[in-house]
């Protein structure tokens, strides 16, 4: 499947096979430039497009982890020990947390779906 990635302030926003062209228009400047690390050429345009093998949320997240790893960036939303989402991340599909999805991470992605991968910050003291 073809996905378009738009790094937001501190998160990745991903559109699956969108019907319209994806641009950064209206989106704030990115605060975490390392999110572009695997695709330095995309920094100027601010949008990354790539083909992902597989068609589930899990496939997408695993593929992204692999790509980031090759760029020496720690970005591993699925914890390999638990095979579930790591405590450092929050995953939303069309605005809903992945845990409320019937098939969870094995939900099939469809055209127009929007996935948000957020970094969890720490607030406790």
């Amino acid at each position, binding site marked *: 499947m073809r996905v378009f990635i738009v790094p937001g302030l501190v998160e990745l926003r991903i559109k699956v096979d969108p019907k319209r062209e994806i641009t950064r228009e209206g989106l704030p*400047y990115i605060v*975490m*430039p390392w999110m572009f690390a695997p695709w330095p050429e995309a920094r100027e345009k601010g949008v990354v497009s790539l083909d992902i093998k597989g068609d589930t949320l899990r496939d997408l997240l695993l593929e992204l982890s692999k790509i980031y790893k090759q760029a020496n960036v*720690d970005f591993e939303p699925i914890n390999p020990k638990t095979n579930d989402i790591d*405590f450092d991340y929050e995953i939303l599909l069309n605005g809903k947390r992945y845990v409320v999805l019937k098939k969870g991470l094995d939900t099939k992605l469809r055209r127009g779906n929007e996935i948000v991968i957020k970094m969890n910050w*720490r*607030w*406790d*003291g």
Partner: protein
Amino acid sequence: MDDEKRLDREERIRYDRQLRIPEIGEEGQKRLKGSNAVIVGVGGLGCSSATYLSAAGVGRIRIVDFDVVKRSDLNRQVLYGEEDIGKRKVIVAQKRLSRINSKIEIVPLFKRIDEKNVFEIIEGADVVVDGLDNLATRLIVNSACVRRRIPFIYGGVSRLRGMVTTIIPKETPCLACIFPNIPEEEGRMGVLGVSPALIGSIQALECIKIIIGGGSSLAGRLLRFNGNDMKFYIHEIRRNEGCKICS
């Protein structure tokens, strides 16, 4: 030379091990002695940073908190003991810290930080160290520090993980660059005592480096620690050009 910044014999003995460090030396120690740090919140993070800033000889430390010691604090807030349950944290912390170093001044402020009193709380600070446990108050302190151009060292923890970044107003991203609005706060996730001990110690080191003029290592950089696999990560972060607080 200002008399009050001169090191006496006792101080030379007390700080001997750090006076030997070239990056600190006598000049750095005098700077520490003449400095003012404010620690907002003396929970897990604040207990750790306050301990090491006191031991290092930061001359004046203001500690701010409105809470009392609870039994559930004792796993991580190591300035307090069982006999302190129900007592004001800032008062107990002041006594403990003064026992660590009676040559410095510890000023306790039993106050809940809000938009009205925050400027008074950070007044005169060379550095403000974050020991808070919620984003809303952090954003209030962040905004005041940006306006007064005072470095603010963010630290946060949960479970076995933590983060630190140093905010140098107008140079690095501030907290509001990253969180323009207050997101829905998540419930307590749990904290193991060593997480704030570690993160608070890194904050104390950043504070000391700023005071002695050595510069911050985490200005514009986010350090993430994961105790599950014992890894540290550092990422560059940038200012939000649309930030309503610092741009």
